[in-house]
């Protein structure tokens, strides 16, 4: 499947956040979106998902125009926000049936080796890595053909960054994924296409030296 988003224009007050941004994401793609804080990365994802309004946006899936109001109700795109969306007072094992009615679908999550190790814990007691993994596994196991992830690696412990990366590489076989995060080394390891948002414009990125070119990184701060 192919997601085409075009003519994205977002203005906050007098400030133009995104200026005529367009791109495509197909099944099998993991697209990395970089940019400094306030460059419009999260706004871009939320606009595509439909939770914030854009001045203009055109969304097509498989060349068919999609009303932005239909993205959520037709379950076309799943979205991972920066902050957790799971109820903190619930146990992991009680969350899974909220997402999946069928026991066959629930078992896929219950029997995941990582989930088994913390299924009896409450959401509020999970480490950030466990929580992000659970969230991505839950929304990634839904039938939505596209996945938008806002900072999935942020504050996550290194072993879970690897686990989440492996999960995303598995999920991309059936989905198109768009990811934004400041952990550029981890993002660049799994993406096949990247761009940076700067001054409302979009510029292609091949490697971390391009990130330096657009002043996202300073020369002495490049991670090995």
């Amino acid at each position, binding site marked *: 499947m192919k997601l085409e988003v075009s003519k994205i224009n977002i203005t906050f007050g007098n400030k133009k956040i995104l200026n005529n941004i367009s791109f495509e994401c197909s099944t099998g793609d993991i697209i990395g979106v970089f940019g400094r804080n306030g460059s419009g990365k999260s706004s871009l994802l939320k606009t595509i998902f439909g939770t914030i309004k854009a001045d203009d946006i055109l969304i097509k899936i498989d060349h068919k125009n999609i009303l932005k109001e239909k993205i959520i109700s037709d379950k076309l795109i799943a979205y991972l926000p920066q902050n957790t*969306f799971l109820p903190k007072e619930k146990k992991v094992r009680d969350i899974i049936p909220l997402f999946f009615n069928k026991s066959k679908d629930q078992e896929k999550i219950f029997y995941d080796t990582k989930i088994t190790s913390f299924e009896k814990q409450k959401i509020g007691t999970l480490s950030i890595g466990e929580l992000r993994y659970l969230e991505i596994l839950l929304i990634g196991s839904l039938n939505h053909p596209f996945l938008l992830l806002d900072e999935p690696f942020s504050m996550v412990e290194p072993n879970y960054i690897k686990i989440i990366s492996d999960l995303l590489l598995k999920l991309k076989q059936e989905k198109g994924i768009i990811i934004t995060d400041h952990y550029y080394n981890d993002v660049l390891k799994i993406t096949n296409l990247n761009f940076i948002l700067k001054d409302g414009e979009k510029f292609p990125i091949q490697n971390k030296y391009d990130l330096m070119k657009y002043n996202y990184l300073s020369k002495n701060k490049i991670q090995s």
Partner: protein
Amino acid sequence: MNYIAFWKYYVDVNFLNFVFSLVLFLSTSLFWAIINFSTFGVLIGYWGFHLFKENEYYMYYNLGFTKRKLLSNVFLFNWIFILPVLLILLIIK
């Protein structure tokens, strides 16, 4: 519709609604408490959810629920549950 997920939202929104309606019951009458529970109280509960659990909306969005769909279903189910009680109350009166 995913009824298990919706039921969680229903309970969360109606918790504050119930407390507010209970206060109304104690200070006015059962009739006004019931009317409140099915109308204005839902908006109080909606406001409370917005205030304390705003980010949980993303769970519902991912499950295909819009805010409008969630709220209209809360109203619908409250009226379904409350209407027989209200009718009995009116008949008794």
